[in-house]
């Protein structure tokens, strides 16, 4: 194996000094001259007609600069899923009616945030409440309140821009169905007929909050003289926000600049465009002044996206030895008032399963249903946490029924390296078998499984797979590396730094390829005007796609430098190597050139060529536009990240309280570009997964979120963190930069069933709804013991 000097090392993060000294600027820290502050008035009703809105009193309040309503933004439509058949239906401000508690109905801009807030109290909205529906099965029944009428052509559909000649048209949802997916392969009937044992079980996952520490925020600054809109915002790929801002506001893309800021956590929740972002741009243009909006934590919980509510029925057929021969999954997604990414999540919950087990005959059917609640989006694993909880819980149950060992059954059913999945994705790297073994050994599976019930202790296991970026239009990324006079380089790459470590690992990739120490890479990232195209920082495409583009850019520069050096040193480029800030002849390392010398020569002799490397990468080269989500056909990713997790828990039988003693995660991220960073991602997912399993749920009552704050929505804190072991299950990914692929999302979904299964192992009862709170577990224990 090649000796690397920069990648593979736990080097300190390049964003460290800024973040540790308080100098790092986040959107919430941005202040511009003459800036005004906007606040949004939000609906208190889950479903109501808007009869009238009187803004006259608010407008008269001293300090108020503008008040807008749905009349001003009428007709603007956008959304994450936006196709000719199913146009997006979100809007910045409600027009005819409100569909959930927290939907924006008006916005005020004022010279200070308190005045803006006071002005909200002066806006008089007359509502005519309509019957509301909160349960998806109720919502699908005939006669249920219809949440949407005709959904008209959106203003933001990308298809025509991308040359897909299909005219978008309006449609009217029937029985509140927002979208459907149906994916099948093999022969499901035959599969079940061949099975020796069949189980059907139902599981529920609630909405949970990403709970990024930085609340959603934007500063928008429209210059009326140049027609240019400068924005600072929380995002996960500036091309997405820039595109939507352009489409909703009618400002050309090249006139919109997303500035670099640090982002205080994202976890999927900040990728889409939000009402307040469109409103900030709208108000800034109206006023010709910078507008800042920082959402309250309550707004983040009630009006921004949470994870998606899944109701999953799994039917699995196995042979006596546990070999899966058929799996039928039926998903009902409680989408909320707008469809968000429900369709994508339903599809992904299937596709992320694909690299896990070879299930042979599969049917995966999903229906997403409109209800009068807040709607959802991707959260770290997008559909996988919900599905793994269901599927890996059921595997555990089947093993119990048949007297089999879950680890053995999992190992038996895994895919194999080199397998081609039914959609065509090939598992060129596949560390999952190793991960399962590592995680099982680390928890002492053989000794502990099924042997500790007298101590109310148990162990459990779960697994998962995840894309390394995917073919969402046009999922590709470019990078530029320029050589500087002093022999350092400047890397220009668009990915934003939201904590995942992109700035550091990408710099490591460039440094390694060019034989430079990390400090010689100057980084410009996250700025849409200074960096090339960037769409990689969601669906875990960061390392594989963004990092891949950086690798190719550095490689390109390297080749160009070697070519110039070969002229100077009078040997072929293949005889040269690059290390320690110099290019040298392999056979005679004392014959070397500095990078500065190479640059000087190139400028002198090559028409001023200053040596710039360009690189780009696409998530799936074969996909030109969209694969089909609803049918699940087409290629989706070039590399799957994989993980297995085990957990050990102890249950207090009298109170139902679960104490997690230990979590082990074995992860296959291809290659650990920065092992300390990978370790951080794994610990992060262990703790987040623990929150999912035991604590976290955005709870609503009559459509109103009743725990929209950090007191009532509890997440794990410092004291609750158990012993965590992180194990390296990497299998080199030939298409990844230095073999690297996804790392930040996969493991979370494996931790949830690991804990749920450990609880069963400890006390012999199973709770089918996460979070497994003390109350739910105690009720289950009582049910089992026939108490009350």
């Amino acid at each position, binding site marked *: 194996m090649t000796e690397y000097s920069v990648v593979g090392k736990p080097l300190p993060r390049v964003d460290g000094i800024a973040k540790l000294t308080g100098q790092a600027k986040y959107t919430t820290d941005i202040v511009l001259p003459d800036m005004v502050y906007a606040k949004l008035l939000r609906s208190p009703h889950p479903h109501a007609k808007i009869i009238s809105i009187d803004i006259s009193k608010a407008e008269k309040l001293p300090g108020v600069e503008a008040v807008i309503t749905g009349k001003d933004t009428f007709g603007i439509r956008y959304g994450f899923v936006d196709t000719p058949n199913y146009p997006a239906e979100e809007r910045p401000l409600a027009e005819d009616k409100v569909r959930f508690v927290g939907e924006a109905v008006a916005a005020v801009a004022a010279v200070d945030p308190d005045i803006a807030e006071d002005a909200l109290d002066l806006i008089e909205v007359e509502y005519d409440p309509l019957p509301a529906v909160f349960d998806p099965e109720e919502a699908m029944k005939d006669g249920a309140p219809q949440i949407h009428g005709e959904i008209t052509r959106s203003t933001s559909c990308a298809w025509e821009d991308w040359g897909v000649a299909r005219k978008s048209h309006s449609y009217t949802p029937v029985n509140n169905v927002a979208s459907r997916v149906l994916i099948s392969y093999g022969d499901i009937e035959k599969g079940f007929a061949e099975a020796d044992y069949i189980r059907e079980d139902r599981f529920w996952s609630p909405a949970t909050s990403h709970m990024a520490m930085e609340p959603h925020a934007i500063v928008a600054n429209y210059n009326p003289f140049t027609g240019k809109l400068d924005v600072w915002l929380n995002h996960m790929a500036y091309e997405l926000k820039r595109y939507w801002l352009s489409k909703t506001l009618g400002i050309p893309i090249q006139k919109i600049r997303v500035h670099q800021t640090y982002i205080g956590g994202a976890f999927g929740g900040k990728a889409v465009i939000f009402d307040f972002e469109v409103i900030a741009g709208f108000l800034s243009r109206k006023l010709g002044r910078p507008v800042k909006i920082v959402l309250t934590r309550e707004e983040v919980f009630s009006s921004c996206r949470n994870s998606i509510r899944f109701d999953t029925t799994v039917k699995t057929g196995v042979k006596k030895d546990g070999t899966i021969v058929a799996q039928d999954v039926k998903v009902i997604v409680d989408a909320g008032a707008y469809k968000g990414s429900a369709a994508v999540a339903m599809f992904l919950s299937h596709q992320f399963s694909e690299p896990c087990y070879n299930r042979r005959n599969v049917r995966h059917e999903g229906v997403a249903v409109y209800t009068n609640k807040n709607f959802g989006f991707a959260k770290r694993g997008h559909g996988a946490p919900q599905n793994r909880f269901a599927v890996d819980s059921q595997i555990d149950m089947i093993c119990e029924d048949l007297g089999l060992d879950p680890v053995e059954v999992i190992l038996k059913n895994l895919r194999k390296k080199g397998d081609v999945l039914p959609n065509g994705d090939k598992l060129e790297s596949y560390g999952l078998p190793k991960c399962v073994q590592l995680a099982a050994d680390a928890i002492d599976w053989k000794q502990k499984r099924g042997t500790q019930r007298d101590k109310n202790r148990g162990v459990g296991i779960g697994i998962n797979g995840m894309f390394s970026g995917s073919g969402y239009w046009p999922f590709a990324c470019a990078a530029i590396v320029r050589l500087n006079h002093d022999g350092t380089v400047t890397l220009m790459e668009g990915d934003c730094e939201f904590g995942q470590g992109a700035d550091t690992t990408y710099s490591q990739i460039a440094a390694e390829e060019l034989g430079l120490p990390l400090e010689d890479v100057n980084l410009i990232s996250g700025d849409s005007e200074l960096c090339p195209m960037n769409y990689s920082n969601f669906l875990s495409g960061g390392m594989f796609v963004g990092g891949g583009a950086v690798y190719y850019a550095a490689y390109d520069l390297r080749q160009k430098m070697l070519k110039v050096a070969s002229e100077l040193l009078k040997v072929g480029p293949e005889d040269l190597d690059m290390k320690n800030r110099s290019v040298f002849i392999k056979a005679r390392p004392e014959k070397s050139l500095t990078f500065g010398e190479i640059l000087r020569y190139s400028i002198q002799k090559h028409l001023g060529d200053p040596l710039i490397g360009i690189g780009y990468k696409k998530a799936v080269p074969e996909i030109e536009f969209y694969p089909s989500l609803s049918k699940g056909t087409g290629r989706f990713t070039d590399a799957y990240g994989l993980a297995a997790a085990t957990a050990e828990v102890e249950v207090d039988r009298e*109170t139902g309280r679960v104490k997690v003693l230990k979590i082990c995660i074995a992860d296959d991220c291809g290659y650990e570009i920065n092992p300390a960073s990978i370790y951080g991602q794994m610990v992060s997912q262990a703790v987040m997964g623990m929150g999912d399993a035991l604590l976290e749920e955005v709870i609503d009552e009559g459509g109103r979120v009743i725990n929209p704050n950090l007191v009532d929505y509890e997440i*794990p804190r410092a004291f609750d963190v158990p012993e965590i072991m992180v194990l390296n299950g990497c299998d080199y990914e030939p298409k990844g930069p230095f073999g690297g692929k996804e790392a930040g999302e996969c493991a979370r979904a494996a931790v949830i069933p690991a804990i749920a299964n450990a609880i069963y192992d400890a006390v012999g009862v199973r709770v089918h709804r996460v979070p497994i709170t003390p109350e739910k577990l105690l009720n289950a224990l009582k049910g089992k013991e026939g108490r009350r």
Partner: protein
Amino acid sequence: MRDFEYLPTKTIKEACSLISQYKEEGKILAGGQSLITLLRQKLISPSYLIDIKGISELNYITFDEKNGLRMGALTTHRAIEKSPIIQKKYNVLSEMEKSVASVQTRNWGTIGGNLCSADPIGDPAPSLIALSAKIKIVSSRGGKTIPLDEFFTDYFTTLLEPDEILTEIQLPSPVAHTGVVYMKFSTIEAGIKIVSTSISITLESDRRTCKDAKIVMSAVAPVPFNAKKAGNLMAGKKINDDLIAEAAQLASEETNPTPDVHASAEFRREIANVLVKRAIKQAFEKAKIA
């Protein structure tokens, strides 16, 4: 947050005179660890905020065997937690304080402010009631001392008149053969308490018979809840597992919990039962060797 006049004070007299002047229009600010949030959420909007945190004569902890412990109302939670005399004589208080909110809140927040905010999930009040605390209340009209147990009247409501200020908390000297225990139940360690209990058991000199039992709980009623029936049940009886189970059952039946986002009423009752049972056992063991 709405605007208000800010009136810092240096003496009790000054504070009393201001609050008697403004009454309902005024509000006393101590550490503000609940108050500032209420102001921000506009749940209260006083015109005058009378800041008493600067009154140094209300920040003290004293102890003597005869009079017991006296704490000024502006004693911070952190000071109680760290006080050597409290750790020695009323250890349960410093143990309980470790669970109050966060270090930051304990550093700035005061015991008087905590009691006056009258949040039924608060832990200090049950612990203090279990220790038979009295409180001193003053106004420009005069002063009085009442048992803390009588102070709370409803959710976030106390007997305090608009012109009154709580100035001191008093605890009697520890009684021989007494064990006091604080125990909490929350889903996560530093999370919202679903129930907590503070229990004081005093034994006769035989070290088996219960002379006096106080069983006080948080978060099971609109006010800090003193399960008197359960306490009375134990008094005069020899303590054994059956008595403990009976007392815990009775205590949980006495409660009047409200369901909320964290737990149903029924679950709170059950946890109260388990917690009280466990805490009595511990207190009994402590009392035996005290």
